[in-house]
């Protein structure tokens, strides 16, 4: 089942007790599902076992290796609710992932509310995944070892690159 993955900030979603049915905080909506030109950026993966692909896509375009939270929503859900999806090239140094970027377009107040509710539901169903700093580095390391990515293409600091290089030299491939 194809999924759309997006990075969020867990702390903002837990500002209110969404587990007890409280409304999602405004900070969560204005920060985590902030739109540009009524569009929300996501990454498509084939199923939840492919989550590392979304992590790789997200991490390879970032300036820092910071822990983040990721949610994934069923593509069918969006299609059933008449959302419009648009494949657009994604900002990632991993060439084979560029085409997996999907924009949810033509969003409005109501549709954004549906997305917010479905993310809250992911929390309730314990389907929000925290991706730690070390996990991100492992995913990047693996992509480098498989020649999907060059470390020089990453925007992270030299010190962070050194840490990944060190992992490549000192440890067997881990996932």
């Amino acid at each position, binding site marked *: 089942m194809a999924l759309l993955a997006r*990075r969020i*900030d*867990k*702390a*903002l979603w*837990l*500002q209110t007790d969404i587990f007890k049915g409280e409304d999602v905080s405004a900070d969560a909506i204005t*920060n985590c599902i902030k739109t540009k030109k009524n569009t929300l950026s996501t990454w498509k993966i084939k199923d939840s076992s492919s989550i590392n692909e979304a992590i790789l896509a*997200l*991490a390879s375009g*970032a*300036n*820092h*290796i*910071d*822990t*983040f939270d990721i949610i994934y929503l069923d593509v069918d859900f969006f299609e059933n609710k008449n959302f419009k999806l648009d494949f657009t090239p994604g900002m990632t140094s991993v060439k084979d992932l560029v085409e997996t970027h999907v924009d949810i377009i033509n969003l409005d107040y109501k549709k954004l509310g549906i997305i917010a509710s479905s993310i809250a539901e992911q929390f309730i169903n314990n389907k929000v995944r*925290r991706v*730690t*700093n*070390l996990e991100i580095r492992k995913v990047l390391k693996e992509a480098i070892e498989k020649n999907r990515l060059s470390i020089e293409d990453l925007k992270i*600091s*030299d*010190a962070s690159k*050194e*840490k990944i290089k*060190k*992992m490549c030299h*000192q*440890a067997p491939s881990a996932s």
Partner: protein
Amino acid sequence: MFKKSIPKFIIYDQKYDQNFLNIDNQDIYSINGHKYESNYFKVNQKSTESTNDTVLRESYESFKNHNKEKIIDALLLNDFEYGYNSTSEFIIQSLFKENSIFTKDLLNDIFISNFDNKIIIIGLLKTIAHFEYTDISPIGPTMALAALSYSDPEVQECGIRAYENWGHADSLKVLNKIKCEQEWLSQYINQVIEILEEELIIYGTTCTKN
């Protein structure tokens, strides 16, 4: 930062009192290696403070006056997104190049004087978490430690994140002693502890100096 309050027993000691007015100015402020200040001294500040101290104090005040508001504005107005650069990061990095000691003192000053402002505290923590541990020490780890006792879980999380990013062995000492009421934060602390331990075992060290 540059001076501490003088102990009362010295202020009222007549023997010292006499000497303060007469002895070599270089020694007056230095007691057990620390520098002291009191209203008593302020009368004679110009005559007793060493030229170097005066220059240093005035330079810092000038640095602070020029940059404090700029940093606070950036912290208040910036949208911080994990994984991405922020304006405040660029500003602070550029000040670091100018004078890292003054910059750290100023960040500490901003942190303490705005401790009741969650937005500023979160912005500062998110920013300093992107500096190398050795560069931002000792104020960075101290700020992160203070954040862990904050009443707001979002601020606490920023403190944990900072320790995670620095990946220093010292982080383990702190995180092993922290208890959070929020279950998700406790889980996160445990995750970070496991990561740091794993890195210590596999890679031998957790922190590399660039």
